[in-house]
């Protein structure tokens, strides 16, 4: 491990072969992504070891820009620009996959930038002069496409306003509003030569800075852009200039290609002091290619700067408090700060610290005049020492607080000032209460020691506000965009039904899914309240009464053992809310899976009945045993003379139909459907016998003949061995569907359709055909749900209703000699056997497979044996298995 511990920085990564030229940090500050022509690498900055995740990429183009999505909602997405292509990478479970890839521009992309608030919006700029705004949910077309005259080198979204963004064109800056995109809001002629970098102020909406080839960094107020507010002359072309997240500092780097020997490139400036840089970051052996501020985290509130240099090292810099102080930023805790600066300040001679001593007793006027009004995000509106009132405004994100502090005469001798939030603030009540509590506490602490408290209180106020705003933000980072939808209470809730918190659903065949509230919950509400409310708006009323923190459904049901502590306990409390019970409802239904597996429909009626009766006996359904026995007696030919009566008895058929009706009304669909099948089989048999006997009508034999012919079809299946034939059901594997390439079913004797056979001379009519069809279909569906495909097919054979004509891929072979398409085993035009098995060299008529490439094939079982041991064609050496699966994969795609 090569970690050099230094006061200023540590090496997070040193990797010679990366040759990355772009770097980005994700919004949690965990991952740094480095992208170059040959590699994309991810470094987890939280881990101590150099754990790098590397993906090779081979492209002749450099990566021109890379950026992680800055919102928590889409934090796993990273956009990367390669020449004219834009790729969205998806980091998930330790793997990086390309989720979108598109040609975003006609020429190479020069810059990209995610929207700061909307997780789905991305802007790209390109040499082709266009600036495009994309919505990643709909990437087919850019949502906005702004045409310009000059090529565009940068695009940056405003960090405060969600609608503004800036683009750089040569030496000019354009400010756009995405709601009014036909022409720019502002056109700033900023520099005399090319602008490399743009950055918006993190706190103030209309401040922007630009870094240019002309050795200067300029700051503009976009509302009044005629002249730059400040100019920093750097002495060398500037590649990037970015605001520091604290104070009013700025960091610049030199254009990598133009760096002159020995010059150090990474500088920290204070905007208020443009004469010389405040600090130079020394550590890299070569130019810095990219730098980013690491987002601050809960456990680590230090400011950290991450830099990637041409020397192929990734450094993480700690920004010491003295540096923050140099940029006009003071940490909240004054005492801690004083300790720090005395230590650090001693080491560093360049920094001059003005230690501010607070005298024991000061008149209010003196305190006002000594107040350092340069507190970020805070504006002192008025301070009047005669009326003893101070008025300040704090703006954090979208929150504005106007606070009035009234100082009693006795202040600061043990009497704190009174803080009051003015009515024109847009703070939530809860935030206001927290803010006042914090301030009151701090003020009391100070005045109890007879010390003044205004400045600490103001600083505390900004910090508290930042925290509160950040809390809200981390809860719902997308709240800005979907604010109205994210919490209950946004709509006309009076018309929205009160949510269900318990329920039961029958699913699949016999599954019952139940969920309910845990036992310990009890309903909130007045005593004698009759029932559950009907509309969601009821929540508002009740929650308002209890002034609870959150308006959720669970707040309506409180738990008896209530523990009102903060979030961690809440989680454990909630954990048992979310149980779902899945019941096996087999006992409720007469339909039985074991029977479904055991029952057969193949063979002659007597065998079927005997087998099925035995199966029913095994699971203890004695009524079914009897039913099967009766059916057997009724439908089979007499074995001896004693029972001859039933088979030809006129009531025989009626007995069966009434049995079917009985089971159907009992909801024993299984038995009803099975009886329908058996009954159908029996009738079919008797009809067949009758019609075969009748030589009277040879005309009817004609069309029937074709049903005795076997058609052969190519059966194939996607995936796996193409020689594996499958039953003609919707395909499932482990219960999950593969894309279906269904083959037409080959007909067999059993499959003769009843309709075809029902010839006019037959006096017998099958009653309730439609109903019986329905039973069989419903039973087949049940078998499908159970995954008993073979059994399902057996039942489906008895369907008289034509299945839907098959739509999809079908393979029709051509005759080898005369090239006409053949549908049967013998070619219709040349009367030759259409297809011979390559293994046994006999006519292949039944189940046949063949290779789609070389056309050789044969009996399925012969081929199966062959391909168990070989992978090539038995005749020509074609790699049948591989080639066919390629083709099928192609069809599938």
């Amino acid at each position, binding site marked *: 491990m090569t970690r050099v511990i230094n006061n200023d920085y540590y090496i997070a990564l040193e990797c010679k072969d990366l040759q990355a030229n772009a770097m980005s940090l994700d919004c949690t500050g965990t991952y740094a992504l480095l992208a170059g022509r040959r590699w994309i690498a991810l470094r987890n900055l939280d881990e101590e070891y150099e754990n790098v995740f590397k993906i090779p990429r081979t492209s002749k183009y450099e990566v021109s820009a890379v950026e992680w999505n800055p919102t928590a909602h889409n934090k796993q997405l990273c956009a990367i620009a390669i020449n004219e292509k834009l790729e969205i990478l998806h980091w998930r479970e330790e793997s990086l996959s390309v989720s979108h890839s598109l040609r975003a521009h006609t020429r190479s992309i020069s810059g990209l930038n995610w929207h700061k608030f909307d997780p789905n919006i991305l802007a790209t700029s390109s040499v082709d002069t266009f600036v495009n705004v994309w919505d990643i949910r709909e990437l087919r077309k850019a949502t906005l496409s702004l045409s310009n005259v000059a090529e565009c080198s940068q695009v940056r979204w405003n960090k405060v306003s969600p609608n503004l963004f800036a683009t750089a064109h040569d030496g000019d800056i354009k400010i756009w509003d995405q709601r009014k995109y036909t022409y720019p809001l502002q056109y700033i002629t900023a520099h005399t030569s090319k602008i490399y970098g743009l950055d918006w102020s993190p706190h103030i909406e209309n401040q922007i800075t630009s870094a240019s080839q002309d050795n200067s960094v300029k700051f503009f107020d976009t509302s009044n852009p005629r002249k730059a507010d400040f100019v920093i002359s750097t002495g060398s072309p500037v590649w990037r200039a970015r605001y520091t997240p604290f104070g009013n500092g700025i960091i610049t780097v030199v254009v990598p290609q133009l760096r002159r020997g020995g010059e150090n490139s990474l500088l920290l400036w204070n905007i208020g002091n443009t004469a010389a840089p405040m600090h130079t970051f020394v550590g890299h052996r070569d130019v810095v290619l990219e730098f980013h501020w690491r987002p601050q985290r809960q456990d680590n509130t230090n400011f950290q700067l991450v830099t990637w240099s041409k020397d192929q090292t990734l450094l993480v810099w700690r920004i010491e408090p003295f540096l923050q102080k140099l940029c006009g930023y003071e940490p909240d805790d004054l005492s801690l700060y004083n300790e720090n600066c005395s230590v650090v300040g001693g080491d560093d001679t360049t920094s001059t610290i003005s230690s501010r001593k607070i005298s024991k007793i000061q008149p209010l006027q003196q305190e006002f005049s000594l107040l350092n009004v340069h507190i970020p995000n805070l504006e002192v509106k008025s301070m009047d020492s005669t009326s003893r009132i101070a008025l300040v405004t704090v703006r954090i994100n979208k929150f504005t607080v106007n606070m009035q502090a009234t100082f009693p005469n006795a202040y600061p001798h043990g009497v704190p000032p009174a803080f009051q939030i003015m009515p024109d603030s847009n703070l939530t009540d809860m935030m206001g209460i927290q803010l006042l509590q914090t301030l009151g506490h701090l003020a009391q602490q100070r005045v109890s020691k007879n010390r003044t408290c205004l400045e600490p209180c103001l600083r505390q106020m900004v910090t508290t506000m930042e925290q509160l705003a950040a809390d809200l933000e981390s809860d719902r980072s997308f709240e800005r965009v979907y604010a109205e939808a994210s919490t209950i209470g946004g709509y006309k809730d009076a018309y929205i039904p009160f949510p269900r918190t318990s329920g039961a659903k029958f699913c699949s065949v016999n599954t019952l899914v139940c969920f309910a509230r845990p036992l310990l919950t009890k309903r909130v509400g007045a005593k004698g309240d009759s029932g559950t409310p009907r509309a969601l708006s009821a929540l508002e009323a009740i929650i308002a009464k209890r002034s609870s923190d959150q308006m959720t459904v669970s707040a309506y049901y409180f738990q008896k053992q209530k523990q009102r502590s903060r979030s961690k306990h809440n989680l454990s409390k909630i954990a048992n809310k979310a149980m779902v019970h*899945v019941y*096996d*409802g087999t006992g409720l239904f007469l339909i039985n899976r074991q029977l479904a597996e055991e029952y057969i429909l193949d063979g002659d009626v007597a065998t079927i009945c005997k087998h099925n009766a035995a199966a029913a006996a095994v699971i203890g359904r004695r009524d079914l045993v009897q039913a099967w026995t009766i059916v057997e007696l009724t439908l089979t030919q007499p074995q001896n003379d004693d029972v001859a009566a039933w088979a030809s008895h006129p009531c025989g058929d009626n007995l069966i139909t009434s049995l079917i009706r009985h089971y159907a009304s009992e909801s024993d669909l299984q038995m009803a459907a099975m009886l329908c099948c058996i009954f159908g089989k029996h009738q079919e048999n008797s009809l067949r016998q009758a019609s075969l006997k009748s030589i009277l009508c040879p005309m009817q034999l004609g069309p029937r003949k074709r049903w005795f012919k076997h058609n052969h079809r190519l059966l194939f299946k996607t995936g796996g061995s193409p020689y594996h034939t499958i039953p003609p059901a919707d395909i499932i594997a482990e219960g999950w569907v593969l894309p279906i390439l269904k083959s037409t079913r080959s007909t067999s004797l059993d499959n003769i359709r009843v309709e075809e056979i029902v010839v006019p001379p037959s006096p017998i009519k099958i009653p309730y055909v439609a109903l019986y069809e329905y039973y069989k279909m*419903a039973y087949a569906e049940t078998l499908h749900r159970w995954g008993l495909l073979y059994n399902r097919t057996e039942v489906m054979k008895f369907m008289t209703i034509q299945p839907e004509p098959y739509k999809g891929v079908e393979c029709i072979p051509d005759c080898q000699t005369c090239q006409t398409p053949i549908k049967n085993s013998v070619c219709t035009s040349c009367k030759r056997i259409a297809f011979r098995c390559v293994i046994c060299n006999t006519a292949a008529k039944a189940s046949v497979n063949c290779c789609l490439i070389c056309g050789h094939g044969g009996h399925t079982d012969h081929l199966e044996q062959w391909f168990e041991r070989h992978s090539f064609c038995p005749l020509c050496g074609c790699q049948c298995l591989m080639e066919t699966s390629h083709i099928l994969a192609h069809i599938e795609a």
Partner: protein
Amino acid sequence: MVSIINSVDTGHEDMIHDAEVDYYGLRLATCSSDNSVKVYDIKNGVSALLDDLKGHFGPVWQIAWSHPKFGNLLASCSYDRRVIIWKETNRKWAKYYEYSNHDSSVNSVQFAPAELGLILACGSSDGSISILTYTPETNSWEARKIQNAHAIGCNSVSWAPATTPLFNGNENDQQAQQPLVKRIVSGGCDNLVKIWREDGDQWIEETKLEVHSDWVRDVAWAPSVGLHRHTIASCSQDRRVIIWTSDDCVNWDSTVLHLFDDVVWNVSFSLNGNILAVSGGDNKISLWSQNTEGSWQCISDVAKGQGHINNN
């Protein structure tokens, strides 16, 4: 009578609003006020979280599985006014289609019977019902909307089975292969249960059933195998469950199943249509079965949601 095969601790951070098992009974999906939808593999009595679907920005009210012949699709509807259809590829779900053309909370989603194709019905508090139809040829979704289906809001939708035998039982016109008719039943805040039929390219209101005296919370059209009649169950804020029966989908008879102790939220028929599960605000689940005479009896209830089913 019923045995528990699985108790899944879903880990939702808030109340669960719906749970459903897929076609084969192998996967469980749940949705909750914590804005997420979770999918579990519940094969062989063990449960494993497959995916946690985050895409809604409000509580998710209901979910529905599609028939597997269209792929493994899961539809979810939410307070955030959107309907999302998720599709599984390699055991991970991703957004497949998002429909956001409702003006208020979407309360109910259900896929049509597979015979009719891939169609989804959604009922929303803006009073309309949307029918989303997938066309495989163009790989696109088409939405049709029944505006103002229920005056204040639509709370529930349910599809009629695609095929039914002729219940008025004239077996002589045996091959009367009915064309597939698309019908929906819906319940809403206007206390009505309405039946809709697709006629050409629009949906027309076929029948309006008026018995409930408060908001209708759920409707379910029974699979009619074991019942021999068209049957619909509806439940309401008025604490009643009503069973509607008909032979021709035009004239409907109503019977009150039971007056419950608290509002009734949920009715669900078994696959054969002979057992009805009812649940409501009192946290109890009861099962009702139809006997051969056609009357319904309570056969058991699941006590207070803790998974013990008592046999009566």
